[in-house]
C-alpha cells in the first residue's frame, strides 16, 4: 500500500507490492465524504479510543525518510507542511491555515521573475510537541537536508526543481524554483521536520538517528504524537498538546496485524474500528455479511497490468502482437469471476479516472476478441505449422514466461486465467512466481523478465516521464517512442497545468496506441470501517486526513472496559 505522500508523486509508481493486500471500498458514496456524522445520535462526541489495524509497524515516520505505509500515512497525522494537501474532484488541493490546521502558512504569493518563486507567510506562535517554536528556519533546514545527497532522502525529488529556500524572518519563507512549473505548490508542501532535533546530526547519519529507536521521543507538529510503542504490536497515538486543534479522540491505537484475514476477523469482531489493507475483492462479501460496515476507498489508486518486455522477447517489439495478446484476454470476465464489484474498473490508459483533466473517457479498453487476436497473429506470420496447438514462426514456437509475485491470491488466479486465454489463441505462456523482492529485482532492477503481471500505484502527478519516456528510470518495458518522448518533454516545460494537460493527454493517447502494457483494471485501496468510528475522511489522497475529527459513537470496543471505569481516558 502506498501512502498519501508516496501516491502524490510524479509518474505512476509501481507497487506490485502491497497492491497484494490492497483493496478497495467506499462507504457507499463518493470518497471524501465524512462518514455518517449526521446519522449518529447526538453528533460528534469528545473522548474515547479508536483502534486501527495496520499491516506493518512504524519504522521512520519522519518527513525526510518515510517510505510506504504506515510511515507515509503518519505524515498526514504527525507533521505539518506549508500547505495542507488533499485530493478533491479530480484535483490536488492545497489549503492554507484558514482552512486546515495542518498548514503552517496563512498566505502565499507568487513572486520573482516569471513568478518562479513563492513566498509563504507562516502562522506565528506555532509550537513543536516539545514546546519549541516552529519557524521558517525549520522549513529551510528541511529542504536543505532533503536536497543534500548525503542524507539520501527518498523525498529529495521534491527539491529537484528548487534553487534555494530562504527565511526572510522567523515566519516568512521564500522558495526559489528553477523555473515556473505546475507542480510548484506540490513541491512546496514537503512536511517540515524540527531543525533543533536533527541539525546536530551529520547528514549521512540522519537516517539512523537514535529517535527511530524510540518513537515516543519523536518531536512532531501534527495533531498526534507517539505516546507509546510496543514494537511489532501497537502504536498509541496521543494528542500533541501544542497542535492548534484538540482532537476529538483521546487516543488512536494502531495495532500491527500483518495477516489480512485476521484484520478482517478483528473488524467483524468489533475489536478494530479502522482496518487498513482489506483485499478489495473481499469488500463486497464483507459488506453483505455485516451491513453496518463501511469501506473507505482510496479510489483507483492502483492499476493491474501485463508488462511486455521487448528486450527479451523479440516479438513483443511489435505493437500488433501486444495488441493481439491483450485482445485475447477477457478482462471483464476476470473482474466478474473474481468478484471485484465496483471496486475495480477497466483500465484503458496511463491516467486513472481520478484525474478529471487527464483521464480520457473516450479511450476504450481493448475489446475481448479472440478471433481478432488470431487474425492479427496470422497476419504477423505466427501460425501453427506443426499442429501442436502452439503458433510458431521460423521454427520457433510462440512461448514466453509470465512472471508474477507470490503471496497474492488474486494474481495467482489471474495468471491462470491469462494462461488459458492465450492458449486458446495458440500462445504458450509459462508461469513463474517469485517472492516479492525477487519479483521487483527482475522487473525493476535487472529487467530480465519476459512478461509480468503486477500493479503500479497511481501517482497524483501528471508527469509520465518516469515510466513512459525512453530514458525513464522506471520504464521497465523498454518502451521507446521518439514522438512520445518529445511530447513528454514539451509538457514538462509548460509553466501551468492548463498548458501542459493537453500535451499530457496527447502523449497518453499515443502510448495507448502502442500498448506497451496491457492495462487490465484500476482498483481501490480499501479500509474497512466499523459503525463505531465516525468522522473519517478516506480519499484518493489517503486514509488519515483530518484525523482530529474522528470520533467514536457508543461504547468501547468489544472486550474493552467502559470509558469511565479505567483510567478515565478510554
Amino acid at each position: 500500500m502506498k501512502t498519501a505522500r508516496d501516491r502524490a508523486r510524479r509518474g505512476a509508481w509501481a507497487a506490485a507490492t502491497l497492491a497484494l493486500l490492497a483493496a478497495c471500498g467506499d462507504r457507499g458514496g463518493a470518497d471524501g465524504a465524512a462518514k455518517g456524522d449526521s446519522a449518529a445520535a447526538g453528533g460528534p462526541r469528545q473522548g474515547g479510543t479508536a483502534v486501527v489495524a495496520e499491516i506493518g509497524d512504524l519504522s521512520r515516520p519522519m518527513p525526510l525518510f518515510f517510505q510506504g505505509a504506515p510511515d507515509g500515512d503518519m505524515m498526514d497525522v504527525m507533521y505539518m507542511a506549508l500547505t495542507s494537501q488533499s485530493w478533491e474532484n479530480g484535483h490536488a488541493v492545497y489549503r492554507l491555515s484558514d482552512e486546515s490546521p495542518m498548514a503552517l502558512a496563512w498566505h502565499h504569493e507568487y513572486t520573482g521573475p516569471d513568478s518562479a518563486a513563492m513566498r509563504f507567510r507562516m502562522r506565528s506562535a506555532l509550537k513543536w510537541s516539545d514546546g519549541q517554536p516552529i519557524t521558517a528556519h525549520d522549513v529551510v533546514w528541511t529542504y536543505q537536508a532533503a536536497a543534500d545527497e548525503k542524507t539520501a532522502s527518498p523525498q529529495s525529488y521534491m527539491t529537484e526543481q528548487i534553487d534555494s529556500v530562504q527565511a526572510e524572518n522567523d515566519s516568512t519563507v521564500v522558495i526559489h524554483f528553477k523555473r515556473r512549473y505546475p507542480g510548484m505548490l506540490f513541491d512546496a508542501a514537503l512536511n517540515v521536520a524540527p531543525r533543533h532535533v536533527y541539525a546536530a546530526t551529520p547528514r549521512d547519519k540522519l537516517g539512523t538517528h537514535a529517535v527511530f529507536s524510540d518513537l515516543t521521543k519523536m518531536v512532531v507538529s501534527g495533531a498526534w504524537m507517539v505516546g507509546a510503542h510496543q514494537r511489532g504490536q501497537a502504536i498509541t497515538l496521543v494528542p500533541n498538546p501544542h497542535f492548534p486543534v484538540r482532537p476529538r479522540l483521546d487516543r488512536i491505537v494502531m495495532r500491527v496485524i500483518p495477516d489480512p484475514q485476521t484484520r478482517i476477523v478483528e473488524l467483524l469482531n468489533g475489536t478494530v474500528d479502522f482496518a487498513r489493507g482489506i483485499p478489495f475483492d473481499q469488500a463486497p462479501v464483507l459488506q453483505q455479511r455485516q451491513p453496518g460496515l463501511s469501506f473507505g476507498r482510496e479510489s483507483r489508486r492502483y492499476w493491474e497490468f501485463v508488462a511486455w518486455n521487448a528486450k527479451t522477447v523479440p516479438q513483443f517489439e511489435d505493437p500488433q502482437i501486444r495488441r493481439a495478446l491483450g485482445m485475447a484476454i477477457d478482462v471483464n470476465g476476470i473482474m466478474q469471476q473474481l468478484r471485484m464489484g465496483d471496486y475495480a474498473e477497466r483500465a484503458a490508459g496511463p491516467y486513472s479516472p481520478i484525474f478529471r483533466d487527464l483521464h480520457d473517457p473516450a479511450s476504450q479498453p481493448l475489446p475481448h476478441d479472440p478471433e481478432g487476436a488470431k487474425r492479427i497473429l496470422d497476419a504477423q506470420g505466427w501460425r501453427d505449422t506443426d499442429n501442436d496447438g502452439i503458433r510458431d514462426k521460423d521454427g520457433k514456437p510462440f512461448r514466453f514466461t509470465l512472471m508474477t509475485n507470490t503471496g497474492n491470491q488474486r494474481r495467482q488466479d489471474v495468471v491462470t486465467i491469462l494462461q488459458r486465454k492465450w492458449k486458446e489463441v495458440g500462445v504458450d505462456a509459462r508461469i513463474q512466481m517469485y517472492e516479492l523482492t525477487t519479483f521487483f529485482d527482475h522487473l525493476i532492477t535487472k529487467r530480465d523478465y519476459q512478461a509480468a503481471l503486477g500493479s503500479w500505484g497511481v501517482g497524483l502527478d501528471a508527469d509520465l516521464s518516469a515510466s513512459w519516456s525512453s530514458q525513464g528510470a522506471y520504464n521497465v518495458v523498454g518502451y521507446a517512442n521518439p514522438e512520445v518522448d518529445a511530447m513528454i518533454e514539451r509538457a514538462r516545460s509548460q509553466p501551468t497545468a492548463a498548458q501542459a494537460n493537453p500535451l499530457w493527454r496527447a502523449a497518453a493517447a499515443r502510448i495507448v496506441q502502442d500498448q506497451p502494457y496491457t492495462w487490465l483494471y484500476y482498483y481501490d485501496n480499501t479500509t474497512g470501517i466499523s459503525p463505531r468510528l465516525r468522522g473519517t475522511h478516506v480519499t484518493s489522497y489517503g486514509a488519515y486526513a483530518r484525523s482530529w475529527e474522528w470520533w467514536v459513537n457508543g461504547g468501547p470496543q468489544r472486550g474493552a472496559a467502559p470509558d469511565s471505569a479505567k483510567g478515565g481516558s478510554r
Partner: protein
Amino acid sequence: MLAYLVRRLLGAIPLLLGILTLIFFVLQLAPGDPIAKFANPNVSPEVLEQMRRNFGLDRPLHEQYGKWLWSFVTGDFGYSFGQMRPINEILPGILWNTMQLTLISLVVIFVVGMLIGIVQAVRQYSIADNVLTFLALFFYSMPSFWFALMLILIFSLRAGQDGWALSFPASGMTSIDYEYLTGAEKFRDRVMHLILPAIALGIGSAAGVARYMRGAMLEVIHQDFIRTARAKGLSERTVVFKHALRNALIPIITLLGLYLPFLLSGAVLVETIFAWPGMGRAIVDAILARDYPMVMATSFVIASMVVLGNLLSDVLYAVVDPRIRND
C-alpha cells in the same frame, strides 16, 4: 561430564561460525538488496546509491564480512535495515515474546502428547486408542495456519458474535486497555491471548509426540520387567508411570532436543496470523527485506539453540538411563 560439556561447547564455536559464514555469503547470492524497498520513480538511482553508502552496502563483500564478524565477536549484532534500529535492542523483545508462546506450546506438546500416548499404549486396541489415534493423525496432518484460522473463526469470531460465555481475542499479545488493568486482570488478559496461538502451535506436534510415546510405551510395556513389577503387586499407576514411562522416555528426550530450537525460532505462520511479534515473524520479514544483519543475528540464535538442544538431549539421556555414559 563437565569435561564433556566443555568439549562439546568449544566444538560448537567453529560450527556456529561456519554456519554464519555460509549464511552470510548465501544471502548475498539472493536477488535484491535492503535498498530495493526504496526503489520507486520518485527516488533517483543516485539517492539509492547514497543509501547503500550510508549503510555500508557499497563496500566489497569481504570487507562487509570482516566488519560484521568483528562486530559480532564484540557482542554487537549490527543495525537492522528493515526495522531501522540496532539489533541488540530488537532481539531481547522478540525473543521474550516468542518464548512466552513457545514455552506454553512446549507444555501443550509434551504434556498432552505424552498423556495421550500413554493412554493409547496402556489401552492398546481399545475404542479410546482408536479414537485417539484418529484424532492424533487428524491434528498431525492439519496445516497449522489453517488450524489457526479455524480457531480464530470459531473461538473468537463465532464465540463473540453468538455471545458464548468464553471467547478469545483473535490477535495480539494484550488488549488495548491492558495498561489500565489490575495485576490479576493483566495476567488473565495475557493468558487469554496466549491460548489460541499456543494451541494452534502445539496441537499438531502434540499429536506427533503422542504417536512416539505410544510406540515407545508399547515396546516397554510388554517387557519382562513390567510383568515382574505387576507380579510383585505394584499398582498399575506405579507400573506405568514409574517403571514403564521412564524407560520409554529416550525417544521423547530426542524430540525435546529437536524442539528446543523451535522455542526461540518461533513459528512464522502462527505468529503472522495471530499478530504475535516474535522471532518467526522477524526472521521472515528480515529475509524478505534482505535485512542481512537481522538474518545473521536470528540465524545465530537458532543455530545456537540447535547445538544446545542436541547437547541437552545427550545430557538427559544419561539422566533418565544411567547405563548411558557421555564420557
